């Protein structure tokens, strides 16, 4: 059976990950894929077939309007499968789209395949304790786990433009404030040193950030440090409801390793931990661990790292 796949994300870089998922799927199942964009995103998209929906400026920033634009285009083109990047807005877009088109929807999938007229995939469940096998009948909508697929490079292919005209909107955006990025781009970071409740005082975070700086990495944290204690802004919170990361090295310092945190670090290449509690669950989730006092171990690590340089 030949399937027609659409790949979309409101973030062009993520759209290019979805594109590679669509590429793999359409090759395996037999079919084609089109990468969908909005307004001026055409040149930033990958793929040989591109469709750009052109509307007002508000379209780019509104998941409500984007879903409506996609829905109208999909009703004409009738793709069997619409894949959306699983960002917060992406999930909203996919959900709305599913209702508008009368299709089912599944989110945060990876390991996608098509068989017997259904989309098959895998997703995390129970805060990452389990992996679920998912099956949803085609035609459907699905969101693709960010970071699960490689990013295709933007292509020079020209996009088909489609005017979407005036779209009704119920809510409107009053203001958007970018979150301070600085050195915090955890999603793309190759090395992350992360702090948990083992760190006793806010001032002691310096131990963690100094080591991160020495290693050229980013600083993350478990939820209590950002949500409860406000020692670090939300953007640093790694976990089920925070950022999911996939660095080459994730070093968890004074983090116990609760499920909700580990859910965000599973895809790290190497996980290491420093914790003074031998029974802490983080050691079950790590490749290398040190049972010890972080206040002694971290300075010793700094010394060791520095001496390796020379």
């Amino acid at each position, binding site marked *: 059976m030949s399937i027609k796949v659409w790949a979309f994300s409101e973030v062009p870089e993520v759209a290019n990950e979805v594109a590679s998922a669509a590429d793999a799927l359409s090759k395996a199942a037999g079919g084609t894929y089109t990468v969908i964009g909005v307004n001026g995103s055409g040149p930033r998209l990958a793929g040989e077939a591109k469709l750009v929906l052109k509307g007002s400026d508000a379209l780019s920033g509104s998941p409500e309007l984007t879903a409506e634009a996609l829905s109208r285009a999909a009703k004409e083109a009738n793709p069997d499968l619409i894949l959306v990047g699983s960002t917060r807005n992406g999930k909203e877009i996919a959900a709305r789209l599913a209702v508008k088109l009368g299709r089912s929807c599944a989110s945060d999938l990876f390991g996608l395949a098509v068989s017997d007229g259904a989309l098959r995939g895998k997703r995390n469940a129970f805060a990452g304790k389990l992996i679920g096998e998912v099956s949803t009948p085609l035609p459907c909508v699905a969101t693709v786990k960010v970071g699960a697929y490689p990013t295709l490079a933007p292509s020079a292919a020209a996009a088909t433009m489609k005017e979407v005209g005036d779209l009704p909107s119920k809510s409107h955006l009053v203001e958007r404030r970018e979150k301070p990025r600085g050195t915090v781009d955890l999603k793309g970071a190759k090395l992350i040193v992360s702090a948990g409740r083992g760190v006793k005082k806010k001032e002691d975070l310096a131990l963690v950030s100094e080591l991160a700086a020495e290693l050229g990495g980013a600083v993350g944290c478990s939820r209590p440090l950002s949500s409860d204690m406000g020692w670090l802004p939300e953007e640093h919170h790694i976990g089920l409801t925070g950022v999911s990361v996939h660095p080459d090295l994730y070093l968890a310092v004074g983090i116990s390793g609760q499920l909700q945190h580990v859910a965000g670090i599973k895809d790290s290449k190497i996980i290491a931990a420093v914790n*003074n*509690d031998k029974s802490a669950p983080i*050691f079950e989730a790590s490749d290398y661990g040190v*049972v*010890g006092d972080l206040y002694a171990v971290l300075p010793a690590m700094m010394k060791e790292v520095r001496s390796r340089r020379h």
Partner: protein
Amino acid sequence: MRTIKSLPKSARTKAPVLAIYSAEHRRLMGIFHPSRHEEYEELLSSLGAFMEKEILPLSPKIDAGEAKIEGPRKALFEQGMCQIPFPQEYGGLGLPFTVYSNAVELLGTADASIALSVEIHNAVAEGLNRFASEEQKRKYLPSLLTGKALASFTLTEPASGSDAGTMATTAVRKGGEYSINGSKMFITNAGDAELYMVFAKTPVGPSCFLVRAGTPGLSFGGDLKKMGMKGSRTSEVVFSDCRVPEENLVGEEGKGADYAKEVLHGARIIVAALNVGIAQIAYDKSLAYARSRRAFGKPISEFQLTREKIADMKTGISAGRLLYFYASSVKESGVDFSSEASQAKVFATEMSLKVCDAAIQIYGGYGYTSDELHRHWRDARLLTIGEGTSEVLRLLIARREMARSQ
């Protein structure tokens, strides 16, 4: 896990992750209150979760003098801790005494000094509920049960403890007032309380009075330095021509000693529960430590002499818990429960000292040098003394037995 080398575990004694309200508690509630146990379990589970989150983490700081108990105690009052066994018409929840004693055990685990403060406060509420006039109950009980006003049970004196009949504080009638003179010692909540239940001698014998904070002639000594129960304020209370109106007499003149005795019987069950709570947390920490501390190439929990301690600690806690549940049950049935209450208190307080001592032994050098661990023994140590010494209570138990075998 492949370990490369073993070394003493860090002295930081981290309490293991556990639910304070456990399957064992549920089992007991199911036995003692088969028809409504699910409801009681739901309440205790919720209270336990609150204590675990909001009180337990503060406990080491409270012992170290770095945190005060006012805030968590107030939050606990707001949860309804003190309302549990009292009648609904005064703002209580009208629940069985067993639910209250179980709740105090949980609080003993979370922080023993808050448990002590709350227990003394509730003893006054019990005294009011049993012996005060309708008017006095309406006036004082509701604010005690919501915790808006803190209470203090003011009986013991510098020279009179177990022999309350020899108290030297007097209350002399002067017109429409009583003038109270004398001093009380080792009074919990003194200086913080809004309401004092004071026992003073009138010509016909000890009587019971209600004295409000701020009454002229009422003053306090400094906070006494105790070996444990550090969060709870304990000091001397001095009465110097302290005038209270005659409507502040509770019940009848001369009956004060009887009232005190009655209140203390119930309080003894509560103290037993409190100490079971202390023993429980000391035990939990010991078990976790024994599993992780290695010696001679294996965890010390593998050694028989450590296992002997674990077995004895566990058995003692189970027995102590059963005894206070049983005593609570006898109290609920309405008959004289003074012997059962005394048995529970004597057993549980002495047991808790043994358990806390064994915990120190298991922790070894770290036990001796870690405040967070030895504080359990220091907290528990008060209660073979306070609220009826083990000696006096043994005599009470034996007297009852002598009377029975006639």
